[in-house]
Structure formats: structure tokens, C-alpha cells
């Protein structure tokens, strides 16, 4: 089963998020479900038996108790982007709640109630800005209406503020809680028809709002995946097939069972050489009283593996074959004009090959999940998952039970980056809990995580660019090849999908009369997944490096060159040129066109902020790149320098971003700061390699991510003021950073970079 991946496929109209407004009959069920109501001992007027708190919930995203508690549901997963704060904050702002007193509650996985919960593809804000406003507005309209009736005044003369309705003329106020009883008698207005607050009237939206969990996190009280305990629980550590598709021939569990604390060994069957995106790998689970015993028990297992066809897989060999393939004609993915003819016009030709490695997500929290299989055949899960609904469906499928029998509680995620959208580890816990009829937590070690990830694919690209006699870029031929995500589930998926091609490759926005974009075949020999910005990573690396090289070689300013290539202000749709669909991150191109004016604006802004024009005079070595992804426009300038010891340092990074209406500016900045650091690792220190089908890195010594000493010293994010529809910022910071850094390194060292990671720069 493949999940709906809005960033990779065209959105089905039914997918569009909508407000889920339960009917009145669902009222009490809902309020007790979210735990808000029926607390005894609060002294307020209410319709229930004396002394009880009554809850009003006009829709699934918020409820107001008669004791004035406003509870807002965070239905998307918190993995570090701040979404658990930012979406509820929109509801609160529109509602006029007292933000400091708002309680945020994490939703369980339930599509029928909450709509899309797949926290992926940088689309939480894009998809839910409007519904969250409407959720808040629904309650606000009703509160105002109720108060106006009480006071016998015009509703238009009232507004909400800090958890109260205020009559503007008289200054009279009433706390929300006191209106709950009245609200229960009122019809719920149609959310689509409500007037929303003006952007300029917002007190939280557009500002810098700290994350809800900051205090809990600093006190060690925040609950992550492995922090939930159940009575009688067991811990499982699993020995998985070292090669994807491997099967257990025989095993000996005797020594493992001798480890004090180890109670059982249970086999989990894998899905073969096409392991799928939501299935566990073949493995042997050691189940113990505590984590250490399970880990030691695993070391004592003896397994005879039938490793299967992937045991001969060498990534270096495949890389050579992929590079070789780019010299041939590939599958046509976009065409405009005639590149062949343009190349023969006699002008200068540039031709480069770019390589990038496999990357692992390496969230500091390794995958983990707790499952509690119950006597009645239902199961409850606690997991750090980006996609609770897919986890729920996958568990139901694996256990052959109804989806309604699976409850998925979402903890905080200790990082996600795409890894924790795959529910394989959740299914492992579910299978084991059912097998031993006890609660089981599956704990992955760091080695497990590095060895058995859903990797970002390694890639080879060849770009041939032709200029005419005047130096104008007239032909662009881009070949890209990498094992596709689809190859994880199917032998037939040998080319990147239209979705993957549309991540920074076929959506090449520059005004070039002849364009030809081709892909080539590559087989997936491991689990390929998506990692923070997906194929934009390698596509932006190649394209932005190439444009910089062409500009520099012609003695032109790279910023000016890219601005001129963007041409007139216009909105691109690529339609007739695409050989296949252009998913546009799941949005209609008419609604979210590729707008060259917006891109030019971020480029001009970043150049100005970073002092691009005076870099030479200031003695600064700067590199530039611009790349739009996930419908967000980003330009980046990276400064590099060498310290006395010969180490590379990155003194400053400047980003300019147009993400439409900026919703929570502090979290926009934090995503750019984090994105720059994440991308520094991809550019300079990380790589996964396969030998004989196995990953040869084991832990953070082999798979290196940057440390504080290597991080950019200062990161500035310049946010464009905008009233365009808001778009996400989780992924967009990553793609342009890498080529901007490489272009700066070229200026520092005089050597172009064609292969990632650029390891040698750190002495």
C-alpha cells in the first residue's frame, strides 16, 4: 500500500482538506473523547448536572469548557517544525482566545475526524491555514452571537479578545466559559460562509510565537516515542536482515534466552526484495524486561541468512552504471524546441556530471513504538509518527483487523525528516505485542537506523548547456538518474516518477529556448524513501552549480545572470512541454503558478542583505543559489573562509524567503537555521555506502552529521512581506544551500564541485 503523497502526486479533489464539523449528536462523544469535559467541582452555570464542566466543541479542532479552558487540537505531528504550535495559534488568533491559557492536545490518527494528518511535504500550513482560521471563526461567531443576545446589542458591535467577548461601545465583557451553555443551543454556522479576521488584525499570526512545548522540553518532561511506559511492557530489539530482501533460513535463540531479562525470541517476516514502504524487514526480535537485556540478547543470536539477490549490490558499481547511462538517450520528461540543433550552432558548450550519495535521516531519536494488543483484538499504539493514519491502516492490515480497532497516539517526534512517515517500526511493535499478548516497545538502536533506513537515493546527473555566439544560454539538456521511491515497492518502477522529476528538475524555470530533460533507469536495491526536500537536493545541486559555472566562465555575475535567465515577470505552467504530469506539489498550477517575479524578489533581497555587490571590497567569499521547492521561493548566499589551521568555516549565511503570508516568523527562522545546518551535513560530511548489499556505516562515527564547530556561525533569514497564500518552510531551506556553499567553495579554492559530499574541506 502506497500512501497518498501530496508532494509527489496530483491532488484528488476529495483530498482537499475540509473542516470536519461533527453534527450535534457527536457532541458529547467528541468532548469526552478529547478529554476536555466533565471534570467535577467547577462552579459555573451549565446545562449538565450541577457542578460539572460542560464542553462546547463546534468542530474537531477546538473546544471550550465552561471553566473557560480553550483546548485546541494539534492534528499534525510535531517533529521540530513547530506545527503543533503554529496551527493551533491560528485557531486561537481567529477565535480571540487567551493564547497563554490555551491547552493544546495532540490528536490520535483519525482521518474522518481531522482530515489529512500526513505531516510531510511542507504542506501543513499550506493546507490548513484556511481551515484553522475557519475553525476559530466558527466559535468566534457563535460566541459573539450568544453574548450579543444576552446583552441585547448588535453582534456587529462585539468582538472577542483574550478569551472574552467584548461589547466595544460599552466595554462590557463576558468570558467564553459563561457562554458555553447558550452555545449548546445554537446552530453551528457554515464555516465556509464566515467572515474571517483581516490579516492586519491578527495578534499572533505574522508574529514570532514561541513553541508550546519549550518549557517541558528544557525540563525533560516532554514525551517522545520511548518515554511512554505501560505496566507489564516488554522491550524488543530486532536483528534485521543486513541485506534488503534477506530471509532467515535457520536461527538459534538459545544463547539469547540465557541473557538475564530476555524472555522470548520472535520472528518477523519481511516482504522480500521489494520490501514496501510500510512493512517491516525480515528479522528476529529479542523480547526482554528492559532495553539493555534486549540489546545483549540480540548480540547473542545466531542466524543463518538467505541474503537473496541484493547481496551482490555495490553502490559504487551502480553509480558508474548510472553515469554511463546519462550518455545515452533516456526517457523524455520535458521538451521544448530542439536542443540537438541548438548544440550544433557552434557556440560554447558546457557539460558536467554531478553525483550525490545516499543519505540517511539519522534523527537523533531512533525509530521506536509502543503497542498494546488487547484481549478484544484491538490495539493501541504510542509512536513518534509523521503519519498516524498510515500507521493505523498499516497496523490494521498487518494484524488483519479493522482500522477502527487501531488507536494511534502520537508522541513528540525526536526529528522526522521523512523517515517517520513510514510506519514499518510501528507495525513491528504491533506484531510483537500480538505475538506475546503484552505491551511491547520496539527500540531501534542507532546502528539499526543507519543500516535499515529508507534512504535518500544516490544520484547521477549530466547537464549539457549550449550558448549561442553572443553567450546567451540557448540549450539545456538535463539527464537525471536515481533509484526511485517507487522501486521500494515494485520491480517496475525504474524511472523517477513525474512527482520526483517535478522536484527541481522538470520545473526548470529559466528562459531557455531549447530544453530537453531525460531520465534513466536505476533499480532500487535498498529501501528508498524521501528525506527533507527529496530529489530537490540533488537537482538543485546540479542546476545551480551549472548556472554559476556558466556565469563565472563568461565573466558574468552569477546573481545578475540568474535574474536575467528568469526573464520577464511571468507565471509558468510548463504544461505543453511536460511529457507526463506536473504535480506541482499537489496543487493546481493556476492557483500556485511558478512566479518568476517572486523568485527575482528573493534573489534581489538576499543579494542586498548579504552585501553581494561589495563582497570583494569587504574581503568576503560568497556563493549564491536560488531554488523554489514546495511552492516556496528561496535564495541563499553562503560565505566561506579558511581558518589558520586550514579548516573551512562558514561565517555567514543569508536566506531570503517568500513563503506567502508568514505565519509564525520565529519558526520560519528556526526552519531556515536548521535547514542550513542540515544541508551543511549533506554537503560536507554525510554519505551512506553499500557494499555487498549492506550499509557500511554504523553509527555517527561513520555516518557523520555536522557538530557545533562545523556549523555556519551566523544564519540570517529575511522574510518577504506577503499576502499570498502561505506555503511551508520545512524543506525549502535545504536545496539552495548546498550549491550556494559549493559555489562559494569554488571561489575560495578555485575548484568546481561535482560530487557530494565535499569531505576533504574539513582538515
Amino acid at each position, binding site marked *: 500500500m502506497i500512501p497518498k503523497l501530496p508532494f509527489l502526486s496530483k491532488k484528488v479533489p476529495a483530498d482537499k482538506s475540509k473542516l470536519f464539523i461533527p453534527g450535534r449528536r457527536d457532541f458529547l462523544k467528541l468532548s469526552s473523547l478529547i478529554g476536555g469535559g466533565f471534570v467535577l467541582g467547577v462552579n459555573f452555570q451549565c446545562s449538565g448536572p450541577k457542578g460539572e464542566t460542560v464542553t462546547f466543541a463546534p468542530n474537531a479542532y477546538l473546544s471550550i469548557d465552561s471553566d473557560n479552558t480553550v483546548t485546541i487540537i494539534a492534528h499534525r505531528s510535531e517533529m521540530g517544525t513547530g506545527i503543533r504550535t503554529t496551527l493551533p495559534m491560528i485557531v486561537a488568533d481567529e477565535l480571540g482566545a487567551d493564547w497563554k491559557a490555551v491547552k493544546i492536545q495532540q490528536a490520535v490518527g483519525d482521518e474522518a475526524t481531522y482530515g489529512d494528518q500526513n505531516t510531510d511535504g511542507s504542506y501543513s500550513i499550506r493546507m490548513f491555514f484556511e481551515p484553522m482560521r475557519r475553525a476559530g471563526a466558527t466559535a468566534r461567531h457563535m460566541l459573539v452571537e450568544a453574548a450579543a443576545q444576552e446583552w441585547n446589542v448588535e453582534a456587529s458591535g462585539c468582538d472577542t479578545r483574550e478569551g472574552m467577548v467584548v461589547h466595544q461601545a460599552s466595554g462590557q465583557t463576558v468570558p467564553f466559559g459563561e457562554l458555553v451553555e447558550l452555545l449548546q443551543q445554537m446552530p453551528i454556522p457554515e464555516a465556509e460562509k464566515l467572515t474571517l479576521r483581516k490579516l492586519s488584525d491578527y495578534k499572533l499570526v505574522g508574529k514570532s510565537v514561541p513553541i508550546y512545548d519549550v518549557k517541558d522540553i528544557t525540563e525533560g518532561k516532554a514525551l*517522545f516515542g520511548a518515554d511512554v511506559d505501560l505496566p507489564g511492557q516488554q522491550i524488543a530489539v530486532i536483528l534485521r536482515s543486513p541485506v534488503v530482501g534477506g530471509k532467515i533460513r535457520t536461527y538459534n535463540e538459545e544463547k539469547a534466552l540465557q541473557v538475564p531479562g530476555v524472555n522470548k525470541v520472535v520472528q518477523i517476516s519481511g516482504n522480500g526484495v521489494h520490501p514496501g514502504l510500510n512493512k517491516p524487514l525480515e528479522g528476529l526480535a529479542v523480547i526482554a524486561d528492559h532495553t*539493555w537485556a534486549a540489546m*545483549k540478547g540480540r548480540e547473542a543470536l545466531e542466524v543463518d541468512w538467505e541474503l537473496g539477490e541484493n547481496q551482490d549490490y555495490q553502490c559504487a558499481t551502480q553509480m558508474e552504471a548510472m553515469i554511463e547511462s546519462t550518455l545515452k538517450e533516456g526517457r523524455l520528461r520535458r521538451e521544448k524546441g530542439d536542443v540537438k540543433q541548438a548544440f550544433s550552432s557552434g557556440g560554447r558548450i558546457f557539460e558536467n556530471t554531478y553525483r550525490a550519495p545516499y543519505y540517511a535521516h539519522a534523527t*537523533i531519536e*531512533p525509530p521506536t513504538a509502543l503497542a498494546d494488543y488487547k484481549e478484544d483484538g484491538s490495539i493501541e499504539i504510542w509512536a513518534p509518527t509523521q503519519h498516524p493514519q498510515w500507521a493505523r491502516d498499516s497496523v490494521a492490515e498487518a494484524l488483519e483487523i479493522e482500522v477502527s480497532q487501531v488507536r494511534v497516539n502520537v508522541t513528540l517526534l525526536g526529528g522526522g525528516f521523512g523517515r517517520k512517515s513510514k510506519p514499518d517500526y510501528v507495525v513491528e511493535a504491533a506484531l510483537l505485542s500480538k505475538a506475546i499478548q503484552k505491551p511491547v516497545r520496539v527500540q531501534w538502536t542507532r546502528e539499526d537506523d543507519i543500516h535499515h533506513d529508507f534512504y535518500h537515493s544516490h544520484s547521477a546527473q549530466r547537464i549539457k548547456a549550449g550558448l549561442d555566439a553572443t553567450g546567451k544560454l540557448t540549450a539545456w539538456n538535463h539527464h537525471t538518474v536515481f533509484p526511485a521511491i517507487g522501486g521500494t515497492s515494485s520491480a517496475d518502477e525504474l524511472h523517477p516518477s513525474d512527482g520526483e522529476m517535478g522536484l527541481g528538475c522538470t520545473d526548470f524555470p529559466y528562459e531557455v529556448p531549447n530544453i530537453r530533460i531525460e531520465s534513466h533507469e536505476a533499480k532500487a536495491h535498498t529501501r528508498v524513501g524521501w528525506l527533507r526536500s527529496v530529489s530537490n537536493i540533488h537537482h538543485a545541486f546540479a542546476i545551480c552549480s551549472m548556472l554559476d559555472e556558466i556565469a563565472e566562465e563568461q565573466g558574468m555575475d552569477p546573481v545578475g545572470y540568474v535574474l536575467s535567465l528568469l526573464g520577464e515577470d511571468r507565471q509558468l505552467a510548463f504544461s505543453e512541454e511536460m511529457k507526463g504530469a506536473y504535480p506541482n506539489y499537489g496543487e493546481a498550477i493556476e492557483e500556485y503558478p511558478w512566479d518568476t517575479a517572486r523568485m527575482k524578489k528573493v534573489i534581489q533581497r538576499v543579494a542586498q542583505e548579504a552585501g553581494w555587490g561589495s563582497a570583494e571590497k569587504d574581503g568576503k567569499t560568497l556563493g549564491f543559489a536560488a531554488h523554489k521547492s514546495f511552492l516556496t521561493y528561496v535564495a541563499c548566499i553562503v560565505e566561506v573562509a579558511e581558518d589558520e589551521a586550514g579548516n573551512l568555516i562558514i561565517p555567514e549565511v543569508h536566506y531570503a524567503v517568500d513563503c506567502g503570508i508568514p505565519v509564525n516568523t520565529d519558526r520560519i527562522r528556526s526552519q531556515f537555521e536548521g535547514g542550513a*545546518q542540515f544541508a551543511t551535513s549533506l554537503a560536507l560530511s554525510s554519505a551512506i555506502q553499500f557494499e555487498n548489499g*549492506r550499509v557500511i556505516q554504523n*553509527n555517527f562515527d561513520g555516518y557523520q552529521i555536522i557538530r*557545533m564547530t562545523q556549523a555556519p556561525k551566523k544564519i540570517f533569514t529575511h522574510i518577504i512581506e506577503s499576502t499570498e497564500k502561505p506555503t511551508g518552510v520545512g524543506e525549502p531551506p535545504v536545496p539552495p544551500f548546498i550549491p550556494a556553499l559549493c559555489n562559494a567553495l569554488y571561489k575560495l579554492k578555485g575548484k568546481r564541485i561535482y560530487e557530494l559530499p565535499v569531505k576533504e574541506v574539513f582538515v
Partner: protein
Amino acid sequence: MTAGFSEFYYIKVPYQKTDAMEKYRLSVNGNMQEVSAPEDMPLLWVIRDLLSLKGTKFGCGQALCGACTVHVDGVATRSCSLPVSAVGDRKITTIEGLSANGDHPLQKAWQEHVVPQCGYCQTGQLMNAAALLNENPHPSETEIEEAMAGNLCRCGTYNRIKDAILTASKS
């Protein structure tokens, strides 16, 4: 190709069956706690699994990431790599014991700078930073970077960690 490929999966580990669990008396956050554990159990798992203090995190198990950092007699220590039998009567402080009300100057500075993203590495970062400030109350930026280099953050909060330590060092 990079060195370091371990024959992890194929080694038949010559496992020595340890005898029954030992009893240890540990001083954790000012309380004496008795636990039964095998002598090689890392302090991390004693803290998390036996004492149910969940603020200390597991990230690598190999002293490479710092997520499990606690204080042992005031020294920042990777609890994943310290066997319980080696603790003795030294005093252990975890994030839960860093301050009485979550008001250590670093915790306050962390909140002021809104340092965390996912938050997972942050308790280890805080414990490491607290040990740094105990030893060197006014570190330079370079000293901070070097002292904090053992603590990984995948989300990329290094800049704000540094700023927050500087803020705390001035308070």
C-alpha cells in the same frame, strides 16, 4: 571505501552468561535509589528503564551524540557508555535534577531563545552546557563550540544553543 564495516551480523558473539543481577545503591538527583541490574548495564538504561526518568535520551549508545548526557559528580558524562558498576557512590544528576523548578539560568535562556526544534537532543545539550558553565562561567564562542562539539543536533539548533549559553553566562 570508508573503513569501519563491522561484521556485526555475523560475529558469533562469545556470550558469557552473567550471573544474577547485582544490587546497586545510587545517588540520583539527591535521592538514594536501589536498583538490581547486571553490572554492565549502562547508566542510561538504569535511569530510563529502571528509574523511569525519561528526560535522559538514547541517541547512539556509543558516546557519539551526547543525547544521554548526565552529571556524575558534576562532570558531564555520556550515560550510555558508563556501566552501572562503575558509578560507585558518585552523585548523578539528570535533567530532572538540574534545577528545582526548571529555572536554571540555562533553562531560562533556552526558553528565551526558543532553542529547541524537535527537542530530543536538548536535555543532553543543557546538561553539557551546565557542566561547561560550572567549569568556565564566561566561555568565549570558540570555547562553547568546542565544549559542545560532542552533542549532536540533527534539527540544527547549534546557533541558538550558542546564543543561549552566552545569555546564561551573562546572567
